[in-house]
């Protein structure tokens, strides 16, 4: 709207346009940069101070939260003091600016910076062409991580989604639905590190000897069934499956909740009609339930596949990637933080990005379909 007015007044208009643009950029940066500077100084001070921890924690929380809030108020007040047209032009940037700047700094620009670094050597100085990518796609270690991630994606996702769907369908027919669901769902609140400890205890192994009693649940069960105790986490390639069990334990609840709410959206008449026509429960499930919730299922599968692609914590805590359990994200961590090779780490990060590009494209397409009017 304003653009046409600006244009009609010639040179002066161009100048005004420039000033507006400059003002918008400035105001976008104003809040985050000032906030950052003020908070930063205080935090350097806090980090180096020796006040009691609880005081530092309280000051940190109040200072951080209030600081951000106050700077919005101040910059908004500042913009409102300007002449009306200026307020109208600049105010949206008071609101969206900080978010855009932070997202740009943390996610958008790093894509390019990591891409650049992936063509450089380990300390990010010399250009070395595609060497890091040759490593990322051909090295034995990397090939092992690809195999394992594929295992996580296929086995982990199919069990999580399959079990989640089964529980959603079955519990839908019982009176105790909420209890069952709460139990399956609860692991979602637990950290992967915590879950790692829980399952490490299940798999723990002491070995054979007089008077030694296994304290790990799995080994005790195996012994009770007449088998032999095993060091489950150091038995490649099966140890990957034992780690994947943890992911299934954590993610089934998610798949269950989302599919369950989709199942509840199926019109009852549809299922009734099928049953009257003589369809068995199994037929009704595959012919009606599954097609009806297809969209939801795809979303759930995509989410869990992305999750298993970036999986890090479980492997880090349980095996550190040893004994043939390494995954891409752990190799990324090792390259960057253990071997100090930013070039290779960046190339691995780009590999992860490439793997999610289909999802990004799909998200954008869906978004554009939904909001033609944007």
């Amino acid at each position, binding site marked *: 709207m304003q653009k046409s007015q600006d244009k009609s007044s010639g040179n002066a208009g161009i100048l005004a346009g420039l000033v507006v643009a400059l003002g918008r950029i400035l105001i976008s940066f104003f809040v985050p940069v000032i906030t950052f500077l003020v908070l930063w100084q205080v935090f350097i001070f806090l980090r180096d101070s020796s006040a009691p921890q609880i005081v530092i924690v309280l000051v940190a929380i109040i200072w951080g939260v209030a600081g951000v809030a106050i700077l919005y108020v101040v910059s908004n007040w500042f913009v409102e003091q300007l002449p009306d047209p200026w307020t109208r032009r600049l105010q949206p940037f008071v609101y969206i600016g900080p978010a855009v700047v932070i997202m740009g700094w943390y*996610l958008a*620009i*790093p894509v390019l910076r990591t891409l650049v670094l992936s063509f450089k050597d380990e300390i990010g100085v010399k250009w070395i062409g595609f060497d890091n990518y040759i490593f990322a796609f051909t090295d034995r270690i990397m090939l092992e991580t690809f195999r394992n991630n594929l295992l996580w994606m296929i086995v982990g996702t199919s069990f999580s989604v399959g079990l989640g769907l089964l529980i959603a369908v079955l519990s839908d027919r019982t009176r105790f639905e909420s209890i069952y669901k709460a139990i399956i769902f609860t692991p979602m609140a637990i950290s992967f*590190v*915590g879950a790692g400890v829980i399952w490490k205890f299940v798999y723990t192994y002491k070995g054979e000897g007089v008077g030694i009693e296994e304290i790990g649940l799995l080994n005790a069960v195996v012994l009770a069934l007449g088998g032999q105790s095993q060091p489950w986490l150091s038995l490649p390639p099966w140890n990957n499956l034992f780690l994947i069990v943890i992911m299934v334990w954590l993610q089934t609840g998610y798949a269950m909740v989302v599919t369950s709410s989709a199942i509840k959206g199926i019109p009852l008449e549809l299922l009734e009609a099928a049953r009257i026509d003589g369809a068995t429960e199994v037929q009704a499930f595959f012919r009606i339930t599954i097609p009806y919730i297809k969209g939801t299922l795809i979303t759930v599968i995509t989410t869990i596949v992305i999750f298993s692609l970036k999986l890090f914590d479980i492997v880090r805590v349980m095996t550190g990637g040893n004994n043939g359990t390494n995954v891409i994200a752990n190799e990324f961590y090792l390259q960057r933080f253990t071997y100090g090779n930013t070039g290779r780490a960046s190339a691995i990060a*780009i590999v992860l990005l490439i793997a*999610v590009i289909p999802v990004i494209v799909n998200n954008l397409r869906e978004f554009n379909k939904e909001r033609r009017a944007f």
Partner: protein
Amino acid sequence: MAASYKNQKLRSSLGVNGTLILICFIWILPTLGVFITSLRNSQDIFSSGWWTVLPHKENIQTQEIILDASVNIDEPMQIEGITATFEELRQSVTLPDGRMLTWYGNKRTRTIIVTEEHWVGFFSKPLTLDNYIDVLTGKEIRFTDAGGNEIIRKGNSLGSAFLNSIAVAVPATIIPILIAAFAAFGFSWLSFPGRGLIFTMVVAILVVPLQISLVPILQDYTKLNLNGTFLGIWLAHTGFGLPLATYLLFNYMSTLPRDLLEAAYMDGASNFTIFTKLILPLSVPALASFAIFQFLWVWNDYLIALVFLGDKNRVVTYALASIVGEKGQDWHLLTSGAFVSMLLPLAVFFALQRFFVRGLLAGSVKG
């Protein structure tokens, strides 16, 4: 006819409930084991499985027989009314009255242990909270290095890690919500050039893996001296949480009734007033959904804490993981530590489950 239909229904209901109970049982068992273990004495933990707190039969030592020098242990021996060789005794010999004789150790000990099978009830060995006290307080370790300097290292105190986690999680939840709420308001209610393009960028970076950012952001943090500060990790969590927060809140805010807001504009309310007095209160359900989502995500995060905070301000996941690394077999610390780390998220989770589920359903696309 009706009866058999009823029967069939009952049977299928039993089948369904039976399957679900079995699955739920398997689901709970690992956590139950860790919980019970966290309450057991560290020696008990190591010598017997946690399930021994349930009633079971156990061999209890009742007597110790030391053979005197006159007995030739290379020949079959007469003990407690039976005759047995050393090899047999090593494998344990059961007496007619049910007692069991077992040779202790090697041949030279000349010791035989007599055990009797007894039923042991619930919690035969006392439970204790000591593990929790140990893991919460930790101990300070002092030592002198080669240069003669005294070095004090903090032990794995989960107590201070718990405080640090709060200091990380509370602002790292509120700050992104605040920033995202302003941005979502801007995107959904104000018009400005580039609005569609910028929002498309937000959608595009929704699922970008955060590994992409770690290397360059760490370079920046090193330059800015931000490593190990709360501010650094708040900003990181804000940056990584913002796309989803903005997206979810935008979806919610753009469904708010237009006429209500137009009426407010007519009355001369400023954008800021409309945002704080109208939009924010109306968006509470969406804000709550995202808040609990983000809180659990931050509290349970390990990677970002590992990279940006590290050892300087240990959070619970970091502290727990380092106990795993350093004392992998100290189950009394590990199990109680795991429970301490779960306490707050579980409480939040159960109190606000409704909002959490709504958030899950609204957007399952986080990067």
